[in-house]
């Protein structure tokens, strides 16, 4: 407790205007829940960046998935977060109510099992997530190759985090003085990519854990670097994250996937930020297998998720927030996803401010 207070004291002593950004859905939730934002002096801003994989998925990619379940008689297995994400005129939940076989799974291994149990049917796993999740999907694909499971494939919407952070740093409209870096992504990719980003863009980057104390410590470490005009990659979350990450997991990502340009909501197309199955694994690539074209990007009317995801506005500044857009009646993905910024703001907002 004492340590917590002394950290908080040191942070509150900061007088310069500083914007720190967090880029992980779990941090978004943890920060909203902890009330840290309210404890910080008004000159220190905590922004939420593109840290929720569901939220950053482009409208065209979501429409591509909807196209697949509409056109093909397949079993689609997806993480639950994707079910209610609005595509153009529909969602996976709506397609399921119209009869599509869409099931929620916690692991790509659920999809492998479904493929073995339903040999007469194609089973597609909707692969979404950052470096924390991608090794698991890669491992499942490799397992399918070893076992020769012919009716299993993955619709890959996977993305990698560092190129998006580069895009943020390169955007002159976005003022970030330091990055609170994602703990579980760090567990896989290690400190290296953050060290590189820090020195390249002159911004401190600290891999941070999820408890209130971790976040305060992470903020403190960032402020210390800023004070000393340093820009290094540091690891606050040493009890979980090894500086070298998990080389086996990284190896699997590189074995199964190759980087391609990908469109991120709010950030546009970022080179080498998406992951596509390598040609050797083409038969497990649902996009190729079912010939799903790139879909046109049709934005959601009135939704400011793009600006929210880049920290240009905070959720409450969206005209729809809490009015026509609530977790029960979400308009954009940042309100649908449990860890989206709009949902986190809404959930932890004092009751009297909810309309």
């Amino acid at each position, binding site marked *: 407790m004492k340590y917590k207070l002394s950290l908080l004291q040191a942070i509150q002593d900061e007088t310069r205007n500083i914007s720190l950004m967090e880029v*992980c*859905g*779990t941090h978004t*939730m*943890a920060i909203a*829940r902890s009330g840290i934002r309210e404890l910080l002096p008004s000159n220190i801003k905590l922004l939420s960046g593109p840290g*929720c*994989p*569901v939220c950053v998925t482009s409208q065209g990619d979501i429409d591509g998935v909807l196209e697949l379940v509409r056109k093909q008689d397949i079993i689609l297995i997806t*993480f639950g*977060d994707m079910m209610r994400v609005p595509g153009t005129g529909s969602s996976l939940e709506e397609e399921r109510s119209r009869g599509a076989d869409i099931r929620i799974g*916690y*692991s*790509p*291994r*659920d999809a492998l099992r479904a493929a073995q149990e339903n040999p007469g049917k194609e089973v597609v796993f909707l692969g*979404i*997530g*950052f470096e*924390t*999740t991608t*090794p*698991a*999907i890669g*491992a499942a694909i490799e*397992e399918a190759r070893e076992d020769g499971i012919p009716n299993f494939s993955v619709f890959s919407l996977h993305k990698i985090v560092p190129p998006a952070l580069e895009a943020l740093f390169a955007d002159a409209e976005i003022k970030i003085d330091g990055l609170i870096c*994602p703990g*579980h*992504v760090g*567990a*896989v990719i290690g400190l290296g990519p953050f060290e590189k980003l820090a020195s390249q863009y002159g911004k401190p980057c600290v891999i941070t854990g*999820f*408890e209130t104390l971790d976040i305060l410590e992470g903020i403190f470490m960032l402020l210390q670097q800023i004070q000393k005009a340093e820009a290094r990659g540091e690891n606050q979350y040493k*009890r*979980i*994250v*090894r500086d070298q990450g*998990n080389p*086996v*997991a990284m190896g*699997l990502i590189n074995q199964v996937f190759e980087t391609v340009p990908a469109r991120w909501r709010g950030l546009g197309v970022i080179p080498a930020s998406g992951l596509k199955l390598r040609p050797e694994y083409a038969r497990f690539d649902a996009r190729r297998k079912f010939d799903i074209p790139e879909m046109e990007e049709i934005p959601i009317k009135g939704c400011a998720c793009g600006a929210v995801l880049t920290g240009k506005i905070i959720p409450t500044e969206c005209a729809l927030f809490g009015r026509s857009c609530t977790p029960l009646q979400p308009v954009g993905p940042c309100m649908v*996803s449990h*860890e989206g910024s709009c949902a986190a703001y809404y*959930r932890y907002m004092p009751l009297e401010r909810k309309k």
Partner: protein
Amino acid sequence: MCLAVPGKIIAVKERQIATVDVNGNQTEISIRLTPEAKQGEYVLIHAGFAIEIVDEDAARETMRYLLEIMQYEDEKQ
């Protein structure tokens, strides 16, 4: 979505499948991404795969934190 939960490896079976105990519940995961993980060790689990071996204290602390969040979320509902 990048949340990972800690579990203790109870048994390692064929093909890098392990039985783990996650807060009193037993499930099966793959340890393909942490091939050196052994019985009795703690791992962080995400999407049915262990992604990192962690020490017991870190595992317990993480579990305590996750339970705290879940309780808080329940109260919010």
